[in-house]
């Protein structure tokens, strides 16, 4: 493991379009970048047994999640030739239509950026201890299951 520091990933509440725009703008000074790839996870209004999901309330085992995310970051930097990488995940109640996951990778060329971004998102879904509680319009809820 390198000594690259642990990064802040968890954000209370939704990830705003403005936050995403500001993140993109910050990269204009890094002129060796030729390709950005961005994944945005948005809360979907699934219908479950006739009831519509209004929001997802995300909780995490933060201490463990930060360790796992650190390992994903290190492994992805080792495997792909990337200039930079940013990962943000929401905690708390996120309404349908709002953004809860923001993965942003930059590289000299597109292939590295595409491949790295996909791998990070897949690993987050599978390995990071986060749980989503789907809240319906009548305030009842069900624990989300990733497909």
């Amino acid at each position: 493991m390198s000594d690259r520091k642990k990064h802040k990933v968890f954000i209370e509440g939704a990830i705003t379009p403005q936050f995403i725009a500001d993140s993109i703008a910050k990269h204009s000074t890094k002129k060796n970048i030729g390709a950005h790839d961005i994944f945005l996870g948005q809360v979907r209004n699934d219908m479950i047994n006739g009831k519509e999901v209004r929001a997802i309330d995300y909780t995490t085992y933060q201490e463990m999640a930060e360790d796992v995310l650190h390992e994903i970051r290190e492994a992805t930097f080792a495997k792909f030739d990337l200039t930079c990488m940013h990962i943000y995940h929401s905690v708390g109640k996120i309404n349908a239509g709002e953004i809860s996951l923001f993965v942003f990778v930059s590289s000299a060329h597109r292939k590295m950026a595409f491949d790295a971004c996909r791998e990070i998102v897949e690993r987050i879904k599978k390995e990071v201890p986060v749980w989503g509680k789907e809240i319906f319009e009548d305030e009842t809820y069900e624990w989300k299951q990733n497909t």
Partner: protein
Amino acid sequence: MTINVLFFGVAADITGKSKIEFTDVNDTDGLRKQLVEKYNTLEKSHFIFALNKQVVKENTKLSDGDTVAILPPFSGG
């Protein structure tokens, strides 16, 4: 000997607690047995253990001061 057991997601709903201290348990199989005896529906949550923040799949010996987290299937993103 004290083992700190943390509950997340549906497991915290089932137990009604986020943390319980266990004193009479030697390994993760033993802990699973005690948990399922106390909270019948916990087994249906398909939880896995993390011992001191590392997922453990095989039966693992526990030591004083260990933290064991009960992790239902993840659903982030």
